[in-house]
């Protein structure tokens, strides 16, 4: 009989295997998926650029970056639920040395593979459109990384709440509306007036707030930026705790 190990090295490899089988492989088989991932943020970008010219273009690019990362998370809801409920693939992986956190991160990484072309596209557009210094670029990168982590962990947790895979379809649209359109992702948080603090309630607008400041389209105080980072970090923590709690392999 073949004994297998389940140490850290195996977990890291499992993450890459999952990113390959759920990210690279489907893209290689059908590149249209990449186009569909960026279709909506590009549509919004075009609309904003036509309506508001320069400022609309920059808002559309910042929003596009946030939206693309958000969509990688919402896709994770459907994929994780599909693997668990329809294919029973998760149950097969339960009976292996791969642990739940590696499984969740592997799936999340695979969704980033889908989003990477979109992120690259919007990043290039940003560099071409707006002069950004090193600090600004770092702030954007950190903010997007925090957003990816928080959205992915929350998405994986959400996927565990469904008992039937088709129910996820409706929820994905609602989540996209609530996290991508309603909060100040495609418009400045200052438009909310006294209620600007609402931007901190979801990770997408907290991230957008940092990016809008970094590209100079809207200026926020250092305290407001600090709070945005704090909000993103808090969402990461909440997501991690929920994954650790909910992604236990065993049903109680």
């Amino acid at each position, binding site marked *: 009989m073949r004994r297998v190990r389940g140490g850290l090295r195996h977990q890291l490899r499992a993450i890459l295997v999952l990113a390959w089988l759920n990210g690279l492989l489907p893209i290689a088989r059908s590149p249209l998926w990449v186009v569909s991932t960026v279709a909506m943020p590009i549509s919004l970008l075009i609309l904003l650029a036509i309506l508001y010219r320069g400022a609309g273009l920059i808002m559309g690019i910042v929003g596009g970056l946030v939206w693309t990362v958000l969509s990688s998370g919402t896709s994770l809801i459907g994929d994780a639920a599909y693997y668990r409920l329809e294919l029973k*693939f998760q149950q097969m992986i339960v009976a292996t040395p791969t642990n739940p956190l590696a499984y969740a991160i592997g799936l999340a990484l695979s969704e980033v593979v889908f989003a990477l072309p979109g992120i690259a596209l919007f990043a290039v557009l940003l560099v071409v459109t707006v002069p950004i210094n090193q600090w600004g670029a770092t702030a954007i990168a950190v903010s997007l990384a925090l957003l990816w982590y928080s959205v992915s962990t929350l998405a994986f947790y959400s996927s565990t709440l469904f008992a039937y895979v088709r129910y996820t379809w409706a929820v994905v649209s609602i989540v996209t509306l609530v996290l991508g359109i309603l909060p100040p992702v495609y418009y400045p948080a200052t438009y909310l007036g006294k209620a600007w603090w609402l931007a901190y309630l979801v990770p997408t607008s907290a991230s957008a707030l940092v990016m809008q400041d970094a590209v100079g389209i809207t200026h926020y105080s250092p305290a407001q930026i600090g709070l945005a980072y704090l909000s993103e970090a808090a969402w990461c923590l909440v997501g991690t705790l929920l994954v650790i709690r909910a992604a236990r392999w065993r049903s109680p």
Partner: protein
Amino acid sequence: MQAILTRGLRRSFGGREVLRGVDLEVDYGRVAALLGPNGAGKTTLIRILTTELMPHGGEAYVAGFDVVRHAGEVRRRIAVMPQDAKPITYMTPYEFVYSYLLLRGLSRLDARRAARDSLEELGLWEVRGTPIYQLSGGMARRVLVAAVLASNAEVVFLDEPTVGLDAVSRRVVWDSLRRYSDGGASILLTTHYIDEAELISDVVFLIDNGVIVSRGSPRELVNSLPGKYVVEYPATTNYDSCVKVGDICIAFVESLSEVREGALRVSHKSLEHYVLVTVKSWGEGYEEG
């Protein structure tokens, strides 16, 4: 040490007790079949033994490890094909088996070798590069069996592995299972095909309403039935020695001269007849079982 051992295993869903004290033991190198009607508790038992579901009482050991306290150790030694499992269909059979083996912790070299051997054994090597969505349902099912058997795990759990397979494919799977257990591993499978259990299993456990009601080799169980032949009559028949099962009444006779008027079918006694007359809760099953 036994490959699988349970004592008084219990599990409820809501107020309904699905497992009501299951005692079961399977030795290494054996194929064990778990038979029972829908909702009897077969899948629940498999889910507990594969560390996916917590028991609510009793004890369960797989490969010598407690499934509750040493789940990690159990997971390194088992492989499972869940009920209704499907492979990822945009992948090819080779990609699916190979990536599953990597997730099981095999080295790339071992995974490549094992994937090839298993795909060849299950007659899938010729289609190794074809996307699974282009294969028949039976072939897709065999891809799952190939992945699980390529793992070379000590204890393998298969929940209805041959559902949807044609007669030839079923035999291919049966041969693979037999060869796998000959290597010293233990296999616990659930099935609704009683002929399958009779042909490939060394030991049969009959579960009904959450308890093991009968166990033994298929031959032992069949021999415990009276007579030599089985005669099926309509359920409306009122012969004394007739056992009512659904819409038929089953009688056991020593010779064909004892067959009475109105018989629907006469056949040699088999494991199917044993199961039919031993199980008491036909048609009462819930979905979660």
